[in-house]
């Protein structure tokens, strides 16, 4: 795991979803370790917030950045072409770069990618597995095969690695989705309803892994389930509809 940071700051973030603002001037400071849960009713912008942090969606205004121990910053400003958090060399650059539009040619090009990009793993609400690749191949896209095998075993899928997503149940696909995120070895893991479709045993198995991982990385959990919060979250941020709050 690389690019350590001290905390992630969300400042005056406003975002919309199909024209309607889901939250306005949202502020929060997130620690570098532990599990923070975003809790709230449907439509309050929990998934939108995760998408902004992952660089998949541009906010209407505001800024998300991570401060590291060397007083450098990781910034996710108005990146309307989906760039993840980027470390800026000086704090003053945050304001300068607020409206910076990233170069689309850098998308998907690991060779040219900014080395200061903060790695963020994302357990999507939908599995987002590539249908024509096996479970193992899906995880192997981001990590060597032997490591992918280990992660698939850890999430309870030994012997299922050569199956295609169409041959797996909903819960199994979700576990491959989780294995892929965990195999990415990122300092921040976004978990959007990660236990959807999992049976109790599988859920507890995954929670055990996540509780271990949160000791040295940040987990951002979005859930509707109080039980998930009690089992995993260290802090909870309640997001009411159309949030205009400081946390």
């Amino acid at each position, binding site marked *: 795991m690389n690019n350590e940071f001290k905390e992630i700051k969300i400042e005056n973030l406003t975002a919309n979803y199909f024209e309607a603002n889901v939250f306005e001037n949202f502020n929060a400071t997130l620690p570098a370790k532990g599990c923070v849960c975003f809790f709230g009713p449907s439509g309050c912008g929990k998934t939108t917030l995760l998408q902004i942090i992952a660089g*998949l969606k541009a906010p209407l205004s505001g800024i998300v950045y991570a401060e590291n121990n060397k007083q450098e910053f990781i910034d996710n400003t108005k990146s309307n072409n989906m760039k993840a958090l980027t470390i800026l060399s000086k704090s003053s650059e945050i304001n300068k770069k607020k409206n910076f539009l990233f170069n689309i040619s850098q998308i998907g090009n*690991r060779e040219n990618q900014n080395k200061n990009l903060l790695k963020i793993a994302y357990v999507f609400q939908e599995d987002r597995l*590539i*249908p024509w690749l096996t479970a193992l191949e899906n995880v192997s*896209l981001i990590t060597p095969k032997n490591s992918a095998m280990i992660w698939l075993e850890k999430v309870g899928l030994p012997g299922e690695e050569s199956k*295609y997503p169409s041959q797996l149940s909903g819960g199994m696909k979700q576990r491959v989705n989780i294995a892929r995120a965990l195999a990415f070895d990122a300092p921040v893991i976004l978990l959007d309803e990660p236990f959807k479709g999992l049976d109790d045993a599988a859920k507890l198995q995954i929670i055990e892994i996540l509780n271990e991982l949160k000791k040295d990385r940040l987990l951002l959990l979005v859930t509707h389930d109080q039980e998930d919060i009690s089992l995993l979250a260290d802090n909870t941020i309640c997001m009411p509809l159309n949030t205009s709050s400081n946390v």
Partner: protein
Amino acid sequence: MAGRSNFVFKSNSLRKNIIGISIFLIWVVIWECISIGVGQELMVPSPVSVIIRLYYLMGTVAFWQITATTVFRITIGFLIGCVLGVGLAVITSVSSLLYAFFKPILNIIKATPVASFIILALIWIRGGQIPAFISFLMVFPIIWANVSKGISQTDRNILEMAKVYHLTRTQIVKKIFVHSVLPYFTAAATISMGLAWKAGIAAEVLSTPQFAIGTSIYDSKIYLETVDLFAWSIVVIAMSVILERLIEFLIKRYLPSRDMEL
């Protein structure tokens, strides 16, 4: 259980084959009846005399030389159409301005009667190259349109996943785009092969190059050899089916499969 399902599958397939052959034979009988009814070999030759003539032609070196040259010409046009069609689809998928720029031209190519292009080609280029050029014109817009659609229909959610996990461009193209576009490409290649073949033969008829099925068809018309005309037409139909199957086989054999998605 597996043995039983295998048996059911085989008997179903046998049944289908028997029905197919029976229908084919019924049409041959109808053809024979029409030939007898008309009573003139010059107008409608009997299937027996056509098969005998075809058998004779197949015994000559010239037949194979003519067929191979025609296949070669049309295949060259087809391959160039595929390569340029895919290339242009990639370029126009990146830039909407280029898409808007090329779309009218490709629509004009699709809408223009093939005979107009053949006549133009007769003015512009040498006889032997015309069938290749015409088959290229048949293939190019279809491949472009289908591959463009395949690229645009690629699952955005998967592309977002690729972005989050920093997949390289090569991985994105190889593991995502190629597989997404493949069904569109296969359909376009199969359809356009048939069209290229028919238009290519028509171009040969009008441009009469040396060693060409089209030229043989033209000659049989000039010398009123209707039996030859029918025999060569059977060759055209057979080759069209063979080439379409060959394309499907090559795509299945050498390009990645998407079977497990279903």
